[in-house]
């Protein structure tokens, strides 16, 4: 198979396949679940099979001409392949974990349909080379996300889901306006045709609304902690694999490997994201709800990813790419551990937990591993990504911004260790037992992967380096 075909399959197998999940549900529950897992696995394998293409560098454009400049364009380059592999792989692990997590819930057909569609749309978004198709997949994701956050159908949950949908939808529509401004200037929605074009500051502002709302950056972030009412698997999916990574991916695609930004924005962006990161870390320090702490932690970490891209130095961009992977693995692990704990204790407030290390040692260890990775402690993978982002920021001459980012890292250390001590150490407050085998296996895999990704950093680093060389190449 040519890699054009593989890419088309990567996008359309999960999207079309997801619609057949309810049909499989007619046969039996087991068949449906198996089919969903198979779709997830297929997507991951298809994306992974593109890796040699990515390592070889260079890009391929698949184009299908349609009317009104709405050409269907697939961009196959190291950046899109890197992102597709990361998202689909973490998404696949979350599907496996879901088997244990939702097996006694209603509406499982809908659940698996939306999750697979979610991942499929992500693939579509990642490979899109046309702004309008990017927007299209962007909104399909928003719709999946809206249904999934309100999965339990409680009134307040539905309200939170509406909030998430409205904020991200608002952002996306404003972003669409930005795209139209660009169309007015260039007469095209084709990303490949407009590389290096300097775009007006208003367009940057409008598009940033979309990115910041999707990637939950201050001041458009508060929907993300609220979205914690969703099933933990969904939260993990939103935080680690798909949703919040869209904004940073679009940032890399449009602003690093796309348009030329006005200088004022180049100077302001690092500070905006560093401050966002700090405020979110502060909120995580104050919060006591397990999932809200982790949610704010995501907002804070997203700031680092933006930072590395925004400074546009080689180390920074490589760091941010690695960050997408490392944060995905570790944050998925943290949320899924939280899911096991919440499942076992039926409590959400960490002050009502304690001493769970004895009864659930594997979950506790997995949590600690993932926490170390998020904090950025070697030999875990998160160390390299954070280190490179900081190095890139200093190299760009922004020592003060790097200092604020490191201060945020100390806050991260503080609240994650406090959370670990509160939940797993000390006196037992609410007893709990270890999760099901598939759940524990998934968190253990994520924890071990966080470690292995650090020990064998050469491999992801090579991929990230090729990608960086590719997207920075034209900047010089």
């Amino acid at each position, binding site marked *: 198979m040519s890699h054009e075909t593989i890419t088309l399959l990567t996008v359309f197998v999960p999207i079309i396949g997801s619609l057949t999940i309810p049909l499989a549900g007619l046969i039996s529950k087991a068949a449906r679940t198996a089919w969903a897992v198979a779709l997830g696995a297929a997507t991951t394998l298809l994306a992974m099979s593109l890796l040699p293409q990515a390592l070889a560098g260079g890009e391929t454009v698949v184009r299908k001409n349609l009317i009104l400049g709405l050409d269907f364009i697939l961009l196959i380059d190291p950046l899109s392949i890197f992102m597709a592999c990361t998202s689909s792989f973490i998404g696949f692990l979350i599907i496996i974990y879901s088997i244990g997590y939702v097996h006694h819930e209603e509406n499982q057909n809908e659940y698996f349909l939306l999750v697979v569609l979610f991942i499929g749309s992500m693939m579509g978004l990642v490979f899109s080379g046309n702004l309008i198709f990017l927007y299209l997949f962007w909104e399909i994701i928003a719709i999946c996300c809206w249904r999934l956050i309100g999965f339990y159908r409680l009134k307040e949950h539905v309200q939170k889901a509406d909030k998430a949908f409205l904020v991200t939808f608002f952002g996306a529509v404003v972003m669409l306006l930005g795209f139209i401004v660009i169309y007015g200037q260039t007469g095209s929605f084709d990303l490949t045709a407009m590389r290096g074009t300097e775009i007006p500051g208003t367009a940057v502002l409008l598009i940033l609304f979309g990115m910041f709302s999707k990637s939950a950056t201050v001041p458009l972030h508060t929907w993300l902690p609220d979205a914690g009412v969703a099933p933990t698997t969904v939260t993990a999916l939103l935080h680690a694999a798909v949703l919040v990574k869209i904004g940073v991916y679009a940032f890399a695609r449009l602003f690093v490997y796309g348009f030329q930004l006005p200088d004022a924005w180049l100077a302001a962006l690092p500070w905006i994201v560093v401050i966002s990161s700090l*405020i979110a870390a502060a909120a995580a320090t104050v919060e006591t709800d397990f999932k809200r702490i982790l949610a704010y932690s995501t907002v804070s970490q997203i700031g680092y990813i933006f930072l590395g891209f925004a400074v546009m130095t080689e180390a920074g961009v490589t760091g941010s790419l690695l960050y997408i992977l490392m944060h995905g693995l570790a944050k998925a692990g943290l949320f899924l551990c939280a899911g096991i704990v919440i499942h076992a204790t039926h409590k959400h407030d960490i002050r009502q937990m304690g001493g769970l290390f004895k009864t659930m040692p594997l979950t506790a260890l997995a949590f600690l591993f993932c926490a170390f990775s998020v904090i950025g402690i070697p030999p875990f993978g998160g160390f390299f990504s954070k280190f490179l982002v900081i190095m890139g920021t200093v190299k760009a001459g922004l020592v003060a911004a790097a200092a604020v980012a490191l201060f945020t890292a100390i806050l991260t250390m503080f609240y994650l260790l406090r959370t670990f001590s509160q939940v797993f150490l000390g006196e037992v407050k609410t007893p709990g037992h270890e999760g099901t085998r598939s759940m524990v296996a998934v968190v253990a895999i994520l924890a071990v992967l966080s470690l292995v990704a650090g020990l064998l950093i050469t491999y992801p680093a090579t991929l990230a380096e090729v990608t960086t060389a590719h997207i920075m190449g034209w900047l010089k």
Partner: protein
Amino acid sequence: MTPMTLLWMILLPAVSAVALILIPKTVKRIREALALLSAAVSLYLGFALFAAKDLVWSANWLGAGIKMELRLYQFSAFILLGLAGILFLITLYSVAKMKDHPRIREYYAYLFLSAALAFGAVLADNFVPLVFFWEGLLITLYALISLGGKTAHRTATKAFIISGFCDFAMILGIGIVWSLSGTMTISQVSLKPEGPAALAFILMMIGAIGKAGAMPFHTWIPDAAIDAPVTFMALMPGAFEKLLGIYLLVRIALDIFKLEPGSGLSLLMMVVGAGTIVLAVMMALIQKDLKRLLSYHAVSQVGYMILGIGTALPIGIAGGIFHMINNVIYKSGLFLSAGSVEHRAGTTELRKLGGLAKEMPFTAIGFSVCALAISGLWPLNGFVSKEMIFHSAVESGSVIFAVAAWVGAIFTFASFLKAGHSIFFAPRSEERAPGKVKDSPAAMLVPILILALLCIVFGVFNKLPLSNFIQPVVQAQAEAGEHLDFTTHALALFNPIAGISMACLLLALGLHAYGFKRGGRKAYLVSEPIHQAPFFKQMYDGAEKKFFDLYEQGVKFLRGLSWVLFKGIDRPIDAFFEKGVTAVGSGFTGILRKAHNGHYANYLAWGLGGLVVIVALISILLK
């Protein structure tokens, strides 16, 4: 010796660590044999590499100039040997001391993992592997402390966050060095500490002295003395962290930056050093528990090293390095003796001991030699290195630093007189459990006695370490043609500076006698006159309440700042979405709702109005 040996040096303990955690708990002999074997092989490799001297090994790692570069040379070979030696002695000691520990598998695994990371940090010749190994030690630090007991995890978190802060400061410094010099390879960097480079110097210095445990980054050490296993104290704050911290400090001051005598940065280091000496020793003086007392000395002694290196004079740097290795020897010896006392008598509280000299003679001898060495008594090793530091402080021109060092010497001796007297030579305490105790098993005594013997050897035959280990390190930095010799005036007892030092020790003896008399002939109360003296009492009370604890204040600051940012920024933003946007939305829809009131005439009017507008628009467009 091939360059690959450098990699084996790191991998061997790492692989042993994995093996040690996999061996089931019930299998005893094999685990201990494996641990001893691995430590012995490490020590052998340490000697072999020390003989080999110059080796370089590198491999691709992260790309973009970031390689896994390892370099063995004079200085790193010497530190490596020190680390391997301590690892072997502690492993031997642990065989007896830790054999009933409930989490013995983890203990050995963390011990060897620490060794692997420490070896790596010493050998690294690129900043990224350096930080990789250096910061990786945070994990074993956290893990080893939490082996202690129920509340140990608090101290572990404290140690982790303080050390993490220092490491992050160092990372920022490395970033600045990288952007200034354009290379990550340490041996290729040489900067003048001016402007941004001066900032980088300070940041990296924080990383180094924070690891070594200097003030104000020391406060977890006394807490760990109570919570953590005593072997941890001997290993980490006692030896490994000193070796690594001072090693890096010397490299920062000599290689990476060229520290000038008399410069502002030199002065800064000397102030930190002198402050650490005096403040920590004052805290050590009033401690009533041997392990806590020792932990404050572990801090105070770092001050001497920083002071010596901070002078930027060859004799000061040599003295600092020599003091570091001496401190590793006697401080580990002291912690291990404390462990021995704890092992048999069940406590290290001074009040509850006494009369142990007869019951535990070997421990008493080991402890006494190490205690006299740390106090700087002629002719033990502590005397020689302290003399060198006194000389350098006087030569630096600021006598005040020499005075601080001498004040430190007085109270160091005074506190060890108190400790040794109360534990070994005072009459048996009434609070001791009935029955005599035996001395500890040989596996514990041998390391203590080896360390005590080294105190004597390094003192009496000080030319041996000075010319083999230290002179080449400093010589490499000296101007071409300049010949350095530290062995001439080191042992001279009859010179004014040594005279003052010995007078200080006599003064300490006097203080002890006075306190003994005042304290109702109770040895553990001898420091009370100073503890209760006006001003001192208030300061000590403040310290007891952790008022001066950077961590406690820092945590308060973090919490306060977080609260302000959360309530001041995050919540208002959320309120804007929750209340503001929804109010505007429902207000707007309210107007529309009112328009839709169901009256036919109303809708007709809307329709007609719309028609007019459309017609108007079309006519304008057609014009």
